[in-house]
């Protein structure tokens, strides 16, 4: 489902809720699939008693993965050229995250057309948890 270069415009934006009321079990699920078993994310005793946090919190990479779904739902997994984020704030169990991607520029390189996007994800109180950029290959107009 690649997107054609005449199907999107600079300034166009998409937004979606990528997780609602994040459950601790989903963090466990991500730990198992990714192999990152840092107890900060799944072990309440450790997170509070040793690391000094109020509780467990999501892997940054779970938040990035959730955010990436907005891009792959829009442009397809085969079209991504770049995807990068900064982690701005922690994501806690119970958080609801909304991701937004905006087309900043449509340009061309030796491979054809591509779209440069800004990406951000906020939690329910509006705090930005992730901000970044992505680039996706667009299909040429036949």
């Amino acid at each position, binding site marked *: 489902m690649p997107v054609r270069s005449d199907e999107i415009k600079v300034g166009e934006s998409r937004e979606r809720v990528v997780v609602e009321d994040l459950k601790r079990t*989903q963090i466990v699920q991500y730990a198992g699939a990714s192999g990152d*078993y840092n107890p900060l994310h799944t072990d309440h005793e450790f997170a509070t008693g040793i690391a000094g946090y109020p509780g467990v919190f999501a892997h940054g990479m779970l938040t990035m993965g959730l955010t*990436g779904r907005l891009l*792959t739902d829009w442009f397809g997994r085969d079209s991504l050229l770049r995807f990068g984020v900064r982690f701005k704030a*922690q994501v806690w169990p119970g958080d609801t995250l909304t991701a937004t991607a905006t087309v900043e520029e449509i340009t061309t390189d030796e491979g054809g057309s591509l779209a440069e996007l800004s990406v951000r994800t906020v939690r329910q109180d509006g705090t930005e948890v992730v901000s970044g950029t992505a680039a996706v290959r667009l299909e040429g107009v036949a």
Partner: protein
Amino acid sequence: MPVPRFPVEAGHVLMFARAIGDDDAAYQAELADPEGRAAAPPTFTMAAAQFDDDYPLRPKPGQKWFGSGAGPGEALEGSGGLHAEQHFEYHRPVRVGDILSAESRPGRSWEKTGRAGLLRFSETITEYRDAAGDLVVTARSVGVLAEASGPASDAEDNGGNG
């Protein structure tokens, strides 16, 4: 740590996709027909950790684990760091059936003074190559370590997500 062999398997990709809430039917279809060569989610290369024999954030039989048991656990040497940034450059999509390998090298490092004190940032560049030796993904990870005592409470300002 180098990962000599990271096979991209249909079941593993399905589990990873489920964990990030991606229910695309293509992942299920791969189980029946791995020749479909479905592209993996964009952050899937993180799962190379499963194939790193020395990965410190996985309990190993016969070795001490730093998480809680009867007690609350203990701080892991040099592990107070958090994940500040992650960047991927895709030379082509990672696909089910790929046999990747990964090599990491240190990148830049810099310091910044935040509310909680001195923050040390350091970059790691990891290259994922396919069986033919062609570059598939270049990943750049930035970690941050707070010099001050206590948790990196500044993560809220300066990035950091473990």
